[in-house]
């Protein structure tokens, strides 16, 4: 009479009955030792490879915070890695009205260094800053992307993104272009091309110049973010710290606002570093090899770092397939690899000497503790 009701019996499938095929490994010395050996065998040679790659990078870094302090940070040259690079210093005060942060005169630092062997292109010049917090929460977001793209963003919109560096104190206020803390504090030291003083044999050359260009130094994707501004000249003023670079601290037809789309140094600077110790690409040469010998470079010293306790350095480097110089990575790999092998060995010894008994259940807690199961 009643319709045949469907059985409520659960289906006997592996999933429903929780019998899915599974691997249930137990982490014992015996089971993990192969893994450790494998990891060791892979990591250690990989580390060696990385170390080799790192060592193949030639790099010279000179801290010129105090210009004559003769402190170099590091210098690695493939042939004479142990020898100290031959660095000489000199400093002169040049009177220049150019872009500077201080009203005092600008230093020009002359650095002389010896390259012991020929360096193959590409060759990169970086500047390195320490203790400079580009990642500070107030600093890092202090720019307006639309303004950089060229849009004439009105002043009231800039205030949220550029904060105190949006408009000047004029009445009516003028828009700062480019606005924001980042743009305002752009690295404004000028690093010259390298001048070939002596060749490897110590014979003076006729001051050949090794040309380095600040081109292709920004990320290609970054370049799309910048454009020629569409502000009227009278709407805008340069950032306060740029004022010295412009007559009366204003943009004029003769001293127009910079074309940010082509100003790669600006683009590099705007790409804020994630950590307070960073270096940024300044210029490069992708074609010519740098011959061994003594070179001169002069740096116009404008960017103040001592005030906040920072340093700046000049870096000359080649690259490997891994990028720049980084022996830590290789060392870390080697260390991990060795550690794994050692652990594997210990486990093997342990297993051979004192293997773990398979579940001798007499050890079980309820057999050893008298208590919760009375009468057993």
């Amino acid at each position, binding site marked *: 009479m009643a319709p045949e009701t469907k059985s409520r019996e*659960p289906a006997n499938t592996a999933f429903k009955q929780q019998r899915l095929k599974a691997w249930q490994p137990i982490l014992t010395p015996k089971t993990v030792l192969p893994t450790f050996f494998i990891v060791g065998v892979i990591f250690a040679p990989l580390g060696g490879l990385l170390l080799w790659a790192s060592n193949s990078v030639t790099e010279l870094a000179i801290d010129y915070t105090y210009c004559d302090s003769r402190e170099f940070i590091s210098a690695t040259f493939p042939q004479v890695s142990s020898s100290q690079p031959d660095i000489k210093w000199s400093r002169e005060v040049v009177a220049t009205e150019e872009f500077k942060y201080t009203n005092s005169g600008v230093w020009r630092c002359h650095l002389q260094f010896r390259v012991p062997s020929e360096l193959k292109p590409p060759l990169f010049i970086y500047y390195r800053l320490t203790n400079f917090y580009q990642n500070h929460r107030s600093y890092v977001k202090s720019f307006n992307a639309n303004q950089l793209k060229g849009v004439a963003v009105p002043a009231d919109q800039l205030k949220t993104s550029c904060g105190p560096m949006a408009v000047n104190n004029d009445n009516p206020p003028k828009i700062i272009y480019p606005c924001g803390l980042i743009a305002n504090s752009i690295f404004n030291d000028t690093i010259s091309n390298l001048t070939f003083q002596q060749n490897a044999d110590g014979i003076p050359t006729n001051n050949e110049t090794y040309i380095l260009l600040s081109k292709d130094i920004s990320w290609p994707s970054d370049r799309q973010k910048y454009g020629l501004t569409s502000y009227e000249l009278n709407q805008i003023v340069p950032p306060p710290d740029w004022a010295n670079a412009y007559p009366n601290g204003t943009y004029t037809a003769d001293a127009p606002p910079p074309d940010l789309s082509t100003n790669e140094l600006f683009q590099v600077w705007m*790409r804020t570093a994630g950590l307070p110790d960073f270096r940024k690409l300044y210029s490069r040469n992708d074609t010519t090899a740098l011959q061994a010998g003594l070179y001169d470079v002069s740096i116009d010293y404008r960017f103040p770092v001592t005030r906040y306790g920072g340093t700046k350095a000049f870096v000359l480097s080649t690259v490997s397939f*891994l990028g720049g110089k980084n022996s830590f990575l290789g060392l870390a790999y080697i260390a991990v690899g060795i550690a794994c092998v050692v652990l594997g060995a210990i486990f093997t010894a342990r297993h051979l000497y004192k293997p773990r*008994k398979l*579940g001798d259940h007499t050890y079980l807690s309820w057999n050893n503790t008298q208590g919760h*199961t009375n009468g057993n």
Partner: protein
Amino acid sequence: MSSNNDFKNEIVESSLSPTFVNLPIDHSLTTIKEHNEGTNDNESGINNPVNDLALGRSLTWPPVQPHCPSQSTSSVRYSTDSSVHVSRSPSLSQRINQSLLQKRESLKFAAKKITSIVIGSKEDIIFRKIPVIPEKTNPLIDSKTNSPFISNSITTSRYTFFNFLPKQLYAQFSKIANLYFLFVAVIQTVPGWSPTGQFTTLIPLSVFLSLAIAHEGFDDYRRHKQDTIENNKECSVLNVYRSNDATSQRLGVWRKTKWKNLRVGDLVNVKAQEWVPADLLLLHSKGEKGICFVETAALDGETNLKQKQALKDTNNTVVSPEALANFQAMVCTENPNQDLYNFDGSIELPDGKICALSNDQILLRGTILRNTPEIYGLVIFTGEETKLRMNASKNIRTKAPTIQHLVNKVVIIIFVFVIFLSIFCTTMSEIWNKRFWKNAWYIVGITRPLHISLFAFIILFNTMIPISLYVTMEIIKLVQVYFINKDINMYHVETDTPAEARTSTINEELGQVSYVFSDKTGTLTDNIMLFRKISVGGRAFLHDLDLGDIEKDELSQMSYQRQKSITRKRDRFSYSSIRRHFRNRTLDSLETSENIQMETLHRRDSTLSNGRFSMIAPTTTGPSPLYKCDSISRTTIGSITKDGKDGDPTIHSTMNLLSIIQHKSHTPFGEKARFFLLAIALCHTCVPEIDPITNDIFYQAASPDEFALVSAAKELGYVVMDRSMSSVSLLINNNGPAGLKDPNDATKTHETYQILNVIEFSSKRKRMSVIYRLPNGKICLLCKGADSIILERLINPSEKLGKGKGASSGMREKLNEINLKGNIRVNTSIHRDIAHIITTDNITSSPISFNNDGKRYSITIDPEHSSTDSFPIYDEKWLYSETLNHIQQFATEGLRTLLYGHRYLEEDEYNEWNELYQEASTAIVDRQKKLEQIAEIIERDLEITGATAIEDKLQNGVPETIEKLRRAGIRIWMLTGDKRETAINIGYSCSLIKNHSITIIIDQCFDLNLTFKQALENINANKERHVVAVVDGATLMVIEQDAVLMEKFVELGILCDSVICCRVSPSQKALVVRNIRMKLLDTVTLAIGDGANDIAMIQEAHVGIGITGKEGLQAARTSDYSIAQFRFLSNLLLVHGRWSYIRVSKFILGTFYKCMCFYLTQGVFQLFTGFSGTSLYEQWTLSFYNTLFSSLPVMVIGMFEKDLNYKTLLGVPELYTQGQRNAAFNLKIFSSWMTDAIAHAIIIVMIPFFLHGIIYKYEFRSFGSPQLYELGLTVYTCVVFVVTFKIAYVECHNWTTLTHVTSFLTLFGWFLYQTIYSFVYPIDQATATYDVRGVFQRDGIKSAFWITVILTTFIALIPNILAKVGKNVFNFTDVDKYQAIEKDDEYLQRIIDEGALDTDERFEDNDIQTGKLKKGKKKLYVENYNNTSIDNYSKNSDYNLDDDDEMIIQHHKKYVERQQTQTSIFDTSDVNSSSKSLI
């Protein structure tokens, strides 16, 4: 007028009585006054409301005055409201007034009666009065509210459209975590405050809350839809028209209407198979004698049909719609309440007769009419006031898992940590501001107030508390529930019932249970009652006609269990005992004549077809194997066997009894026996139904006991053929059951017994009586009930000759004495001793002399040689003591005993009593109480008719399950309504009490303080012993009242391995549970039961389990989980409970870990930003972490983790204790995970930073140092790798395909997301702090990136793995151990088998072991424990058993020492059994 005044005075008088002062009386007075005025001042009645009513609404309105004291108001209200006046006739109104006067007379009488009966009635009792006015068009008025009665529409939904959102929001934000996130979300939306975007908390929070709210909303929507369907169902309601001819007769027409339009006072008809639309008063049934049947399954889950019967008066009057249209009456009912089983009310018929209404006349909403063509009914309660709804609305208690407390604690800890971290960072940023930033010329204009800085850090770190925790947990628990529901091992084939989880919130509690509170009947036992023994005339007989059948099933079942090989030895034991027993039985059956063969055949038939004690009418269901008796418990067989073994042949088959009746019917014994069988056949409330096709007789019984009794009577030749309200007709086969097969047998007689009164059973009375007029004209009271109750009411045998009213007091005293003595025996052997105590009087001599007669052995079934009476009745005292002996013995065997008594009543005595009875039975107030009082008058001075014993069959696998639970460290409390002996014996049979147990009996007869003190001392002295405490309901009542005693009792109960509470009421069950729950706050209690009486307990305990058993689904409905059999409890707890516990624990730990690990990287990063609050991650990437890039692995571990396999967990219950100790999730484990998280966070930040040149001086990217986003990308990737691998592989033991797939999906998803993001991220976003565009395209293909990620992942995880390995080697747990063991199935199996050995058997083995171990060492150990295969095994396996000899030996010594102490205790206790007793 004078009569009116009289009436008034009467009422006033009564109202002076202290118990009867209530407001309604005043109402009635004023009303009556109005009446008076109406009749006197305005004879035409035009302005009189009552007359308006009468004239306007019904021409022949009988001026019914309510006989309940408080009703008048509503009729008056009704009339004032009515606005339609059809016609008015002065003569009619006169008539009405006249009859009003008459009515007042009768009302006066009624009121008098009521005042005299209602003593101690509650003051606030108000009655509902429903005038039956078929013609009414306006709704009746509820006197309580002065507005129309509420409509019949019901609302099960909890919300309306408008209050849904506010209510839900309130509910959601009352959760602390949600409130916290709301706070964070709010401060985040303040522009400029948040380092991580403005809406990254608000949006996920809204999503998760919306999910939760939508879920609730969907549920409620479904409820709404169901309500709508239900409210729009159709039913037929009576419409009254006037015929157009001159007679203008009223015609009744049934018209369809929707349920929601039904109103109180409507007359409806319900046809067969239709649902009853509201609570109805049954006026007329087309069934025989006004009887109808309803199925109440939806209401209380009971599947048997219940019989209802219309009052004779109404049934005979309103036979058609026309009659109904002209029917008028006044119905007075109790107020709406939730009592499904009682109803008080009365109806005043047009002729002035007042009839009482009881539950027999009430059809409740939610029931279905069956087996009855049609009924007419009056709607009395509608909508929310129906008993169905009154019952439904109260169950609101929500259970929260215990683990929740810990989670809350953890949330608070982390919250404190977040605050601390924020304060630290704020302080640091202040220091930086003062010392560094002022010199940093490139950062100008940063003037952030302190509080904003603090808020910024709180926002930055807030997500350390996982926002998705609750929602995700809900999801994984649903999956766990799915697996519980789908477990084929918990599927009961016979009843087609899988396990069913009704809640998902407390799955993990199942894995932490420490106390199980179990009901007995229907939970431990099958609730199949088998008539087993009978004691009559001082002899006991065994009714074992069905044992043959049962044995077969038993054998097959055992072989099944053997296949499962869980408890091998045990089964072997019982198997042999059954065989032994069976041999005896076979011999017996050889002796008996072929009658038995035929009977057995017949019985088999009837068992098959009548297997269900409570049968839905066969037409609807047909024979069902559902409740087929499939096995007899081992207890009974065991005890029977023991009897036989002891050479005690007192137990004969009931076949013998039959032949005695047949052949020696005129001996005193024969008379007694026959009368007893008659009593069994008569004293019950079962209704026989005859299947028209097969002519089989089915019984509708209110309880399984009654079904067993009536069926037994049938088997013994007393077949109840028909039963009506007034008579029972029997078919008596004088030749015994053999006659049944032959309808033409001349020895068959039909007898009809007239029922005079039925005093029904109630749990309070514990007895029922029926008064019959026997065919010979005598009036006889038959009473059956619990032995203690009946004993009190027996006539003292010694005084029988001089019996008079109340003459039995002497005997009663003696009985009390005896009972007291019985109670005094407080030891394990109580069952053996009580019988002796009872016979310590002068009675004792009789049985001894009888024994010396040797006649006991001479019972032969030989009709030819019946000249001597082999069954003499010595004297009343002897009979009395023997019967008591038997009852005691039956109880000892774990049988339920019932004692029958009877008394012949004199005509005068009966009439006098009957008057009182009738009066009481029409009472409206406290009828039940009054009936009890009146029954007390007649149920006395009974003579013993005989006693019956019914076997309550244990469910399959109960002892094994209990043993397992015990091994799992779970203490089991049995709470039962049975008496102590029965409870103790069931306790023995289901291994709650062991042979070596110390049993403490707590009895109020003794100084309870002393009892507790001694018991505690004793327990402390014998720590290893198995201790059982037994307490009864009466004692519990005493304990309840004294907080100190309760404290001690709980203390004792906690120490005991098992506690048996007998004779407890449902509320006491709940009380016991509550007390344990309150005392042990951290332990989880579980209550399991199957009946309505367990609901309180089920709701009280942390976890409530319902057995979907025969007592209906009521308990299962209110439970959290329901299973079909008690034995599934072990699967549910040991396997699913444990898995759920492990899963939830690991899930929670994993969730907190992943959040802590990830968001702490932000904290570490602050060191490199000068505590400025810069976020390392882009805001949306950041907020997707919880949902997209870390949720799958934790969910997989929460759904599919198995730290141990099904078989291991079930076979080694000791593993369960992990949950009880909170060993998988506690603050220690939590802190170790947090340490991991912190370490990982530091490693994950530092390694890439190292590589980027913080410590070491240069970084490796040709384009210069990485931008913030690039840096974050590397770190983020490392986090995703480390977290995924740690959770999915290091912490998860069970690596399935799903583990791999989800891990892959997580990693793949992360890279896919990055790829897409790096292409679509907008360039010109005004706040594009993070340089997303194009980054991953570039970095993703760089080897440096990958090398960094791989290195970081390994450095983070290797110490973690090492720690795991170290733990496995030096500090392993049981779980670690068994993970290794279960790799070897054979070894595992052996351990399981070994563990499953009954403790008793281990005790037996003990001596041998001790002896051997004194000589040999581990070799013997190996032999003993591992038999043969372990040697082979140890050779084959990598693992060497020969190591760590010392530990083995040490362990074993301990074991042996323990055993020895125990054995010594036993030795003494065996010698002197009384030493077992504590008191």
